[in-house]
């Protein structure tokens, strides 16, 4: 333990603690701007300066030492922080009222806290015409004028996600965050995971806002509008309304969506159950009949799909061909459901509410996304967008009565709901695979596959006995962790050895969808844990906990699809993958 003094108060903290965290122990909240608890401190802004034995140091990155005498505030420190903040404001547009981060911007709240009442320095930010925003991905918007160069996005893109789409370019006052060569983001390795948008303190990186489009769909009486919500949305949307992370608000979300004007409310969890039926069967085929290569890798995360197509195209045959749950619900809505209620699918509009920015891209990523004859999912909204829409509509979310989802694509099992966190897809798959292989249900105590749950480790491994055969499993989250797993597979295949795994689950974001790029901001590991616990309790309280037990699923196959992997299933519920170049060729750059 390290003993030190902060503002005259004795503190004792473990070795390696930063001054920032040590101060929290004595209820001192040192202001920060570039710092994010999720990331390695970059120490760029200088707001958190404190005096250590008379010397000015940054609290966010300085580890405590024995005998330190720290002052966290005196007129000189406050003056320094205020001047830095004023300088930041002089290189930032004065557009708070129309900014996507109005009222939830870290720079704005600091300016408010420090009581800045005037712009001391001349504003030097270039105009929009000179420095336009990049919305080429239609998932993520990069507005360099609002960037304060905290570097969180670069850190998360390079170090955590290992994508390297974003980097610092130029120097001095011209320094900015952009893809290499100032290319449009859509032409770079960007996988649209949106982690940059979840970590950005200002409006420099945000989700592409589709809410206007959805409002106009809702206003059009000709349309039959259908909403569906992803597993992870139900445990995070409440945060936008002041609820604790992890609070399960499924019933309230259904109600809110109906009040917004959606005619039908489905649940993506149902789609997850279908995914398990298809993907589980696909795995059993590959495992028992040798119909396809092993290991099989899950494919329900669109950012991961993009990553693999760009960085590991040689692994494409290992991907499950099954679509992601919201695409499945979209396809079934415009076929199975449209037939059932006798509505022309052309007049149907499906909106999915996702914790994810990459889903916005997924809805048009290949021709299979139009399997119903129309675009299966018309718009994908993030949790943050739907929260704004609910607020705009004046809906008192917290006091809403709980409602039920609509039939036949609304009933879900516990297996569907655990799709929202890392290890969940694998867990759900194993529950059904066990049944498909052995013909017996998994014992209640085995339902939660402990070694692959949790978020402390980026790669989780285990092996289990399935009908006398050893099945080796790996679960990775955060694309930065995937390389290790895939390289092991690559190496084994190259040497002609048996691959180290049979089944691999990957989610692009840390913790899985609960930590998705479209989720309410301020995510830390504590928040991820709380959201995960919320989903686990949703699973525990479910009547059915295995996808194949879902009566509506059984009905779906009986009435419409036939069996898993049937021709109809393949047409509607499966897709294909193609290698993608990391950088789109730009002939003008050759000059």
């Amino acid at each position, binding site marked *: 333990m390290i003993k030190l003094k902060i503002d005259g108060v004795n503190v004792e903290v473990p070795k390696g603690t930063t001054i920032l965290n040590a101060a929290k122990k004595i209820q001192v909240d040192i202001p920060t701007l570039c710092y994010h608890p999720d990331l390695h*401190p970059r120490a760029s802004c*200088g707001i958190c300066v404190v005096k250590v034995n008379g010397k000015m140091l940054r609290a966010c990155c300085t*580890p405590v030492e024995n005998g330190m005498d720290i002052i966290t505030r005196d007129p000189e420190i406050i*003056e320094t922080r205020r*001047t830095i903040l004023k*300088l930041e404001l002089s290189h930032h547009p004065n557009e708070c009222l129309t900014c996507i981060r109005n009222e939830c911007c870290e720079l704005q709240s600091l300016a408010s806290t420090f009581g800045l009442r005037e712009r001391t320095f001349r504003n*030097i930010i270039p105009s929009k015409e000179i420095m336009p925003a990049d919305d080429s991905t239609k998932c993520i918007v990069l507005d360099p004028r609002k960037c304060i160069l905290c570097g969180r996005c670069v850190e998360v893109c390079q170090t955590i996600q290992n994508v390297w789409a974003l980097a610092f370019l130029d120097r*001095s006052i011209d*320094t900015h965050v952009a893809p290499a060569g100032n290319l449009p983001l859509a032409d770079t390795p960007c996988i649209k995971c949106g982690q940059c948008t979840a970590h950005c303190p200002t409006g420099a990186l945000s989700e592409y806002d589709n809410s206007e489009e959805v409002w106009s769909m809702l206003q059009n009486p000709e349309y039959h509008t259908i909403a569906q919500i992803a597993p992870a949305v139900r445990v995070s949307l409440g945060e936008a309304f002041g609820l604790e992370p992890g609070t399960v608000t499924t019933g309230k979300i259904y109600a809110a969506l109906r009040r917004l004007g959606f005619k039908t409310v489905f649940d993506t969890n149902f789609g997850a159950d279908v995914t398990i039926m298809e993907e589980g069967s696909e795995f059993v085929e590959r495992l028992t009949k040798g119909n396809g290569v092993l290991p099989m890798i899950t494919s329900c995360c669109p950012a991961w799909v993009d990553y693999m197509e760009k960085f590991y195209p040689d692994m494409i045959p290992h991907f499950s061909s099954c679509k992601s749950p919201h695409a499945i619900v979209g396809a079934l809505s415009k076929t199975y459901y449209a037939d059932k209620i006798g509505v022309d699918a052309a007049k149907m509009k499906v909106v999915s509410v996702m914790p994810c920015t990459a889903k916005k891209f997924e809805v048009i990523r290949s021709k299979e996304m139009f399997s119903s004859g129309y675009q299966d999912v018309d718009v994908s909204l993030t949790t943050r967008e739907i929260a704004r829409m609910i607020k705009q509509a004046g809906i008192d979310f917290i006091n809403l009565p709980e409602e039920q989802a609509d039939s036949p694509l609304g009933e879900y099992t516990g297996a569907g709901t655990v799709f929202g966190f890392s290890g969940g897809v694998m867990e759900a798959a194993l529950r059904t695979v066990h049944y498909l292989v052995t013909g017996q249900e998994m014992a209640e105590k085995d339902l939660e596959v402990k070694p692959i749950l949790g978020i402390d480790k980026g790669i989780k491994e285990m092996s289990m006995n399935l009908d006398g055969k050893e099945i080796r499993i790996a679960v990775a989250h955060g694309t930065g962790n995937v390389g290790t797993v895939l390289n092991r597979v690559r190496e084994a295949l190259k040497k002609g050895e048996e691959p180290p795994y049979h089944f691999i689950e990957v989610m692009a974001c840390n913790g899985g969808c609960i930590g998705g790029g479209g989720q309410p901001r301020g995510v830390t590991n504590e928040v991820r844990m709380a959201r995960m616990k919320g989903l686990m309790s949703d699973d525990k309280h479910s009547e059915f906990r295995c996808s194949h037990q879902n009566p509506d699923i059984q009905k779906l196959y009986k009435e419409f699809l036939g069996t898993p992997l049937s021709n109809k299933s393949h047409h509607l519920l499966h897709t294909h993958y193609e290698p993608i170049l990391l950088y789109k060729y730009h002939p003008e750059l050759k000059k």
Partner: protein
Amino acid sequence: MVELSREQIEKLKQLGRVQKENLLKVGEAFKDEVQKYIASIYTCNATGCHSGGAGNVIEAFKESLETFGLQDKVRMVATGCMGLCASGPLARVEIKGREPFLYKQVTPDVARLIVSEHIAPTLEKGTSEPLKLSKYLQGKELSLKLPFFTKQKKVVLKNLGHSDPENLGEYVALGGYQALMKCLEMKPEEVLEIIKKSGLRGRGGAGFPTGKKWEMLASAPLVDGEKFIVCNGDEGDPGAYMDSCILGGGAHQVLEGMMIGAYATGATSVWFYIRAEYPLALQRVELAIKQAKKHGILGRNIFGSNFNFMADLRYGAGAFVCGEETALLESLEGQRGTPHPRPPYPTQKGLFGKPTAINNVETLANIAPIILNGPEWFSSVGTATSKGTKVFALTGKVNHSGLVEVPMGTTVGEMVNEVGGGTSSGKPFKAVQTGGPSGGVIPASHLDMPLCYEELKKIGSMMGSGGMIVMDHDDSMVEIAKFYLNFTVDESCGKCAPCRIGGYQMLQLVKKIAEGKGTQEDLALIEQIGNAMKRGALCGLGQTAPNPVLSTIRFFHDEYEALIQQATEKKQAEQKLKGEISKLENEMTKLETQKPVTGAGCNVNCTKR
């Protein structure tokens, strides 16, 4: 480390002895070779003189010597920097039995004259007759008794203008690599103790004690079996070029210093990081590494010891910030060169995450002389806290401008008036700027201030790498401040807000004042930004970037005031003029409305209608 058997150790020792003998033989061979010459011409071929045409001068010397048949009697050497760069190309003629003679501004024609009028006659007539300089050469001679030369004490630059930098034999003959041999017979801790005792401090700017830095590296455990010493050759201060010259003229001396450091600290390899704009330095370092490898100075079991060691060279792309040690490491790793916070210090977690000590070129060049002459010898020169000598690049409006090495504690006055020989314009001396863009100005009132780390810091400047620019009465201090700030703003890496935005905003305000548009408020804002940068910038460069501005405001406040006063007066005059114009305009309209409107032939006052 692998345990060796007794026979292996014996064999190694044997091998080491042979290696040492062979190396010393190279030195002896050189001595034997120069024995045959009765005279030498040393021509400075460092960057400055080379660009002044030293290459052609050397050719002319060679041709002339051949014409006179003297090529076997006179040794022709292209040397490193001789120091008096402004008077280059320089050539030094040494004839046995005669005082050395220095020529300035040598052209190929002058070179031919030197051979025909000075060397050839002297060799013919013998050295008994006093030298009478022919009329053609008069005005080309430079007295070696100038204070510029006599005031200097050369430790680092000792061999620079007086030996062939590409000749390993000459370096060995001058005592080269003997410090390393001496060290290898000591324990690493003993070597460390010598450096600590010498009081040597980093010559790159901040003046961190070298012994302490090495001790920190020595106590850091190896990571993956490695730790490093990096030579910081990314000199970037405008006007400073000592590292370029030291590397170009004494690469072996720097390499030897690094190897001694590696032995003392247990480092496993060294890296040279040299900016790509220094082709000569790069070429010489590359050659030195090659020669050292060939002679077993680099490699495994050096001189039969258990010490294995490699050196490598990396080019810097020329960003000023990459001279900052943490940014330099990033750049060495192939990343964008931006500083990162310390701790962890590079000695704990440096290059590729392994313990690393980063030393300046000049610091490393001091090591071998300290080992050979002892720490007491070194610490006997200088002040109480700043030991040894320091190389300065003395430039600006000074009579003798060039590279000088003086004992620490030499006063500003001695530097300007004696070494520099006073202002070149003859006008009164106003100030010197030290420490480059991180430093500040020392006004004429501080002429007796000794040049050492503490005093310079006290006055709001710093040692920096040793740039020293002399200014006379005509120089505007606001312009000087603007020039340096412009440099640091341009070279800011853009990482931290105080430096990136603060520097830029400050520059706009300084420009505004310089253009005669400033106000008192602007001056207050400059100081506000300056304080925030000093306290809040991440790295040393950002923290010191406001120094040139703040120190000129401190010592030459009147110049800023005058410009502001000018602006205020101009504004007041403009306003007064505007007031008068509008007054006139008002009167005009008044007159126009009062004017009776009369029709043709009508005598009735219409306004009354």
